[in-house]
């Protein structure tokens, strides 16, 4: 059995004439929470866009479960991998239940309605994400954290092995950030989903990730478990800061208690 869900070989990606990623090789492990960190413009969002087919790479291969994504039908791939963009938008007045039901789109025929199975999956997704009580409310009447959970319920209803999220905690306050990350961790542990996300907040990444990837100028600077890779040297390379790092009280993950700009 292959222990990687996503394999990237010699990837080059660019916007217009700006090469963001030049020759990147990367493997993303199966059934783990992988987080990609790095400073602004390091190519982490570009990498996610290539994996989720929003951006067509200039060259290189991206394979999901061993088969190359450009050779697979969009709808088929959407049954293996779900993608939540950074700030998704929905039309005003859309109900939470309706939004979540769109997660069943890859499985539906054009005129076919939702079957009993679909309904069950939609309800279960809303239960797991804790928004079932808001099912019949318009999405725009929810708070930021609830809304983000509704979106996560939508990608969950896609029933995919892999979940890809681009900064799922942006614009959320600290308690909602923790709530979302705990939920994603739970999805990984209880439902064996491979979760891949880009995250800005280093301490959250260190706390919740199984596997951390540090990206700088489109290259992997370090990868591994948070305990193994979050150290002064690596953070200086990645962000250009001097940091003081401790382990949390249980000794399971590193915490950066202070930062200074490296001179």
């Amino acid at each position, binding site marked *: 059995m292959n222990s990687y869900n996503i394999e990237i070989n010699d990837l080059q990606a660019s916007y217009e004439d700006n090469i963001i990623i030049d020759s990147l090789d990367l493997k993303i492990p199966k059934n783990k929470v992988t987080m990609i960190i790095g400073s602004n413009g390091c190519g982490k969002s570009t990498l996610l866009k290539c994996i*989720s087919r*929003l951006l067509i790479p200039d060259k290189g291969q991206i394979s999901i479960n061993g088969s190359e994504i450009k050779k697979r039908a969009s709808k088929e791939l959407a049954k293996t991998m779900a*993608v*939540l963009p950074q700030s998704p*938008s929905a039309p005003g*007045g859309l109900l939470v239940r309706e939004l979540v039901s769109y997660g069943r*789109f890859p499985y539906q025929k054009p005129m076919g309605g939702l079957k009993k199975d679909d309904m069950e999956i939609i309800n279960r997704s809303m239960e797991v994400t804790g928004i079932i009580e808001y099912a019949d409310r318009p999405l725009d009447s929810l708070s930021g954290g609830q809304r983000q959970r509704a979106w996560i319920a939508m990608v969950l209803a896609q029933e995919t092995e892999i979940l890809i999220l681009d900064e799922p905690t942006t614009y959320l306050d600290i308690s909602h950030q923790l709530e979302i990350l705990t939920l994603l961790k739970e999805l990984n542990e209880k439902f064996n989903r491979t979760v891949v996300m880009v995250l800005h907040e280093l301490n959250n990444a260190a706390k919740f990730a199984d596997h951390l990837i540090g990206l700088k100028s489109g290259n992997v600077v370090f990868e591994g478990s948070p305990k193994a890779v979050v150290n002064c040297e690596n953070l200086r390379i990645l962000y250009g800061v001097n940091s003081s790092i401790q382990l949390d009280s249980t000794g399971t993950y590193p915490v950066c208690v202070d930062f200074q700009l490296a001179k």
Partner: protein
Amino acid sequence: MGRKTFVILIITAAVLSASIIFSLSSGSYSLRLDEIIRTLIGRGNPLSNTIVMQLRLPRIFIAILVGASLSTAGCILQSILGNPLAEPGIIGMNSGAALAVVLLISSSSSAYYDSIGIYTMMLLPIASIAGSFLVTALIYVLSVKKGANPARLTLTGVGISAGINAFIALYQLTMSKGDYNRALTWISGSLWGSNWLFFGIIAPAAAVSIGFAMYNSKLLDVIRLGRETAVGLGVDVDKKQKSLLGIALVLSAASTAVAGNISFLGLMGPHIANRLVGPVHIRKIPVAAGISSVLILLADTASRTMFSPLEVPVGITVSILGVPYFIYLMLKEA
């Protein structure tokens, strides 16, 4: 279908029927309900027969088709462009149709509508669709860089349409007074001179296109969530965007061919429907079509009766209704 949607659909249908009866009865020769019914079941006198069967009924049917087509085109464009203010008139789709028809009217230099030959009349929708297609293709090509960016598409459309309208105005200056008036009436949007042949020409195009839009309603729902989300849900957005744009184009060109430029109809129906039944297309498209049909029907009835025997082009009446609503929307969205 939810009970609320069902009730709203029934109400919309009832209001539409009432509008049809109102429109059938009013005019320079007004008819009572019993006269209308007698005529419809084939027991009318020659006068009421001509008025109902040859003049008002085809005009009403065309108004409904135009209302439904423009509204559906509006629903499609608002979703694929992710812009709540998009509609065929605003993004420049109609300007190409307008240009083609103005060229055709002036080149055939015969009387407007009823005495132009049947071939010219058959040519009208074809020219209109061709013109609309060329201009939309131009807008699309100019705004595509690695996939069509909706904002760029909209802005390019606005720009191109301003240019084409200037060209139309320039062309009109060189026209004879009679041709100028004909072209102006047409550009302002008018249902004057509607007949069954026109209806026969646009009905199939409108029916097939609206059917296609309904068939793709789920796709429209998902595309409305934005390119990134739609791709994640397995939609080949660039390809689907093109075919949906094509449908919106046929709908708007077919209506432009028979009714000229009518703005705001593609905006008002979908927005009111959105408030009534929400943004899910399978409910929104039919309700929006019904509302737009009612609006154009009432506007047209007012257009031909208010200053009788003079007729105000219905496009102007719709705009008078539409502008305040448009401004209201802008204020509310902001």
